[in-house]
């Protein structure tokens, strides 16, 4: 079954295609909670990016709410979460849904793809995960 799950020292992401990735928590660098889009444009959603040393996981809140809540409630992740906003959806996201699109798809991406989103992020230093998710 697709989705995010965790054990003591590791995280696993299963995709509907059958592809899966298993990562040690030691390889996890950050978890980005992205507030994507705007209600004015009706393209708003929340999407999480798990940034490991060698790959990214795209985990949309819309389909993974419960598993995200469970995973993020665990102690080891608390200091790793960064809340950021993507207020304007870049063209490639709107058109191709390359990484997130209007509503992200559960996905495993190469770490190099992170450079395609980091410039679009507005880090919200004054926001905690509890206040937005």
């Amino acid at each position, binding site marked *: 079954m697709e989705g995010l799950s965790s054990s003591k020292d590791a995280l696993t992401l299963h995709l509907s295609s059958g592809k899966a990735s298993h990562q040690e928590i030691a390889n996890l660098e950050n978890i980005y909670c992205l507030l994507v*889009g*705007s*209600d*004015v*444009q*009706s393209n708003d959603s929340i999407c999480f990016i798990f940034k490991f040393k060698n790959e990214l996981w795209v985990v949309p809140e*819309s389909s993974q*709410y419960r598993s995200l809540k469970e995973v993020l409630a665990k102690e080891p992740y608390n200091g790793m979460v960064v809340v950021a906003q993507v207020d304007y959806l870049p063209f490639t996201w709107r058109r191709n849904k390359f990484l997130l699109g209007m509503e992200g798809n559960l996905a495993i991406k190469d770490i190099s793809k992170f450079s395609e989103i980091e410039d679009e992020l507005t880090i919200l230093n004054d926001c905690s995960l509890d206040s937005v998710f």
Partner: protein
Amino acid sequence: MDYIEEQGMCLPLPTPSADEGIEFLENIAAGNLGAGLRITSQGKSIPQIRAEYKFLIERFEQDLINKKAMGLSPKEIARWAVNERTSIAKLMRRKQGLEAKIILDLRDVNKYGLGGRSYENLEKRLITKGVAASEVPNELMKGAVKPNKAVSDAAIKGAAFLQNGGRAVIVISISATAYTLLTAPENKLEQVIYEEIGGVAGGAVGGGLGVGLCVAFGIATSGWGLLACGVVGGGAGGLLGAEAGSKVYLVKDEYMRNSAIVNNGGFEEYNPSKFMRALP
């Protein structure tokens, strides 16, 4: 022949003064699309729309604090917050034109079901996700005050740039551009303009290729130069779409980072203060 210079870019125009040059370009814009006046008005009003949005959101947040202080139940407050936030979004949509409003309202229906972003639909959606019924009001309140920092900042700082950007968009824009611009942060506005020129011009060797040519030949890359190139390109007709606009931006972005490209094109070495100065 006069030269309008803005932000280090030069563009020759067949007018005796800068003011007449501006008028000339706006007239071309109006003639090209036949909807120039409406679009001109839209371009000028976008900074105001953004400022109004910021004002309404801030007032909403203050009202929410007041409601909580009044001791209303979480469900009552959440219902009020959802309705109020949805009203603000709809108000902003109306200001972007009827076409934009219809498209955006349809998105809501598609995403949330008949009735769009109503309290009941949002409640259903959360329960489907696995949120306990008792937690729904808190979750909805959280969602209603979700930060909109980038829009707020851009509304204040981006107004001056946006006025120029608005003029550039005048040439080829349709209402879709307005709502894209509405939420584009300040540092993305120029890119948005490029994309919209490429995507909406519909024209031709159009906005997209027209601007591309301008970049390639170093005539100009933004502000008035971009506007004029958009006019030239847009008038030619064709089918290049937003892909072209995006590529144009990438070309320019590459140009900025790699002075070798500049040299290959016969430009002087890249210097931000002289960026895209017209060739002699």
